[in-house]
């Protein structure tokens, strides 16, 4: 029982990070039909930026995080303008490859400047032990889950209430119609990439808080794929639910079956989902059969 609760909480923590990373991924896919292979690298940039501002320049926490988020917005806008916009309307393979090239460049810059040696992340979440249902759980993990929930809640409010958010939903639904209603699709794309980079930065610093600052952070870019396929490529609730399910599944398999298997289990799930229900749990059923 104790093992089970511990596995589930650690699974939920990883799952919360997956959800945040997958959120940005789904957002970009929904708005612009781009499969973003550089999502893991956006997390990497976010984690290293926070580390730079707080750990190396020793700025106070709120300032450091705000600056890191500012850099994320900048990265998002620049990437969209310089790399993605020239490729609007190009074949899928070109768009995939350009994000792969982008991932390579981002990773090279970050690791070239800071070297991939693992470093301790300055603790901003109070560490300690909390008693949940009679089981001792690290409080940093609970904080991570809470923060991720808060972020996702904030974003969903943004999509429902703010005019930018509603414009983004309109563009995701139908670009032509949105254009004719006077929505600037270019602006929406730029906002989309910034929000994706911001959510990736937060996911990155939550992850860095758990595993430390190192090149390994970008590995989560791959882990996002089973999550978004399970939840549905174009569904934001799907990204959240999928992230939590994959996180818990990985923890359970790792705890009860063996550590080796937990890396590959999400991808086996992915293949099964693609065979049976390619649009995932909550995705729109528009996949074209051949």
């Amino acid at each position, binding site marked *: 029982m104790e093992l089970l609760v511990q596995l589930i909480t650690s699974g939920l923590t990883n799952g919360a990070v997956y959800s945040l990373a997958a959120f940005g991924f789904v957002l970009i896919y929904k708005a612009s039909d781009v*499969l973003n292979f550089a999502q893991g690298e956006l997390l990497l940039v976010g984690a290293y930026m926070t580390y730079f501002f707080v750990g190396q320049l020793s700025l106070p926490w709120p300032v450091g995080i705000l600056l890191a988020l500012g850099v994320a917005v900048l990265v998002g806008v620049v990437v969209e303008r310089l*790399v993605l916009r*020239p*490729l609007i309307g*190009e074949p*899928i*393979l*070109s768009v*995939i*490859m*350009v994000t*792969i*090239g*982008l*991932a*390579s*460049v*981002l*990773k*090279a*810059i970050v*690791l*070239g400047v800071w070297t991939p040696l693992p470093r301790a992340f300055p603790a901003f979440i109070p560490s300690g032990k909390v008693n949940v249902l009679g089981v001792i759980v690290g409080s940093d993990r609970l904080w991570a889950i809470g923060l991720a929930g808060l972020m996702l809640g904030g974003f969903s409010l943004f999509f429902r209430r703010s005019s930018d958010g509603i414009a983004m939903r309109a563009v995701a639904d139908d670009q032509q119609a949105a254009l004719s209603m006077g929505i600037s699709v270019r602006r929406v794309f730029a906002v989309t990439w910034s929000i994706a980079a911001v959510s990736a930065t937060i996911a990155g610093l939550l992850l860095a808080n758990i595993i430390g600052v190192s090149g390994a952070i970008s590995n989560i870019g*791959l882990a996002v*794929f*089973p999550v978004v*396929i399970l939840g549905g*490529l174009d569904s934001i609730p799907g990204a959240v639910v999928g992230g939590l399910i994959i996180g818990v599944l990985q923890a359970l398999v790792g705890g009860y079956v063996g550590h*080796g298997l937990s*890396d*590959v289990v999400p*991808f*086996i799930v*992915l*293949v099964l989902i*693609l*065979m049976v229900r*390619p649009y995932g749990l909550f995705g729109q059923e528009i*996949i*074209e*059969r*051949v």
Partner: protein
Amino acid sequence: MESGVFHTTYESDTKLRRTPAQKIRLVLLLAFLLIFPFVAGRYYLTLANLVGIAVIGALGLNILTGFTGQISLGQGGFMAVGAYATGVLTAQVGLPFWLTIPIACTLTAIVGAIFGIPSLRLKGLYLAIATLAAQIIILWVVTHWKALTGGVDSLVVPNTEIFGFNFNSGNSDFRWYWPILGFATLSVLFTVNLFRSRVGRAFVAIRDQDIAAEVMGVNLFVYKLLAFAVSSFLVGLAGALTAHYRLIVTWERFTLETSILYLAMIIVGGLGSVSGSVLGAALLTLLPAFISNVGMALSGVAPALAHMMPYVQQGVFGAVIILFLIVEPEGLAKIWKDIKDYFRLWPFPY
């Protein structure tokens, strides 16, 4: 004054080499390839052999992705199948070279066809993700099937001997140059001719419009799996040659990065172009070597730069992909064609 190449008979239209200029270039290329190993040092021979293997792998991927339009991120996994099959057959079963190569290639073709099954239902993005899963699952099996592959430890392959001639002793790079050149040439000829046949034309039809192709009598089920099998056969050949040439098989050589490297080769070279596969494979194999040479030369001036080289390589690699996609999406093959056209039409290029 010529304004282009125009064919007036079917015979001239279907010839492989159509113009005198092409024949001259072919002779020059052959002369270069034959003289090169006798004048080049060991380092350049190693590079040449790696280029040769990469050409075979890139041709295989281009058949699938460039010509048939099925995006594959599973290249590294398929190469691993070919390499590990060769390693196991040579080291544990003790089969000779001329048996391991065809068996390993056939096995890879079968594995490729199995992982091609999702392509019958999925296309585009979803197929890319499915092949990504194939890559990760294959590599996981390879690193965890300890009894057969040695797990994460490397698998040592014995020397290759044919009729008592040991390819891996003495100047092994020189000795291996010839079989690799032979296999690469065969692969190029095979691919060129494949797309002059019914099968190749069917592949291209599937790429351009799969439903229209089916209406015209191309059996999608058969031809898609065939595309995966043919492509994986060549990819398996590249993996098998790597195993025999390097004498060691390690999983690090067949990760997702390998898949991406090969995709980059065919994009930089030119999708759906045989000469593009060759040019792209050569460029992306030689570029990292060139960069590390520059780093070595500069290490006396700026020692800190030597440590940066892996990141410079990675950054330049990504930048090359982005630049080609934005500036010249049709790749080196198009640039080469433009250069030829420029000289042919000079001085009135319109």
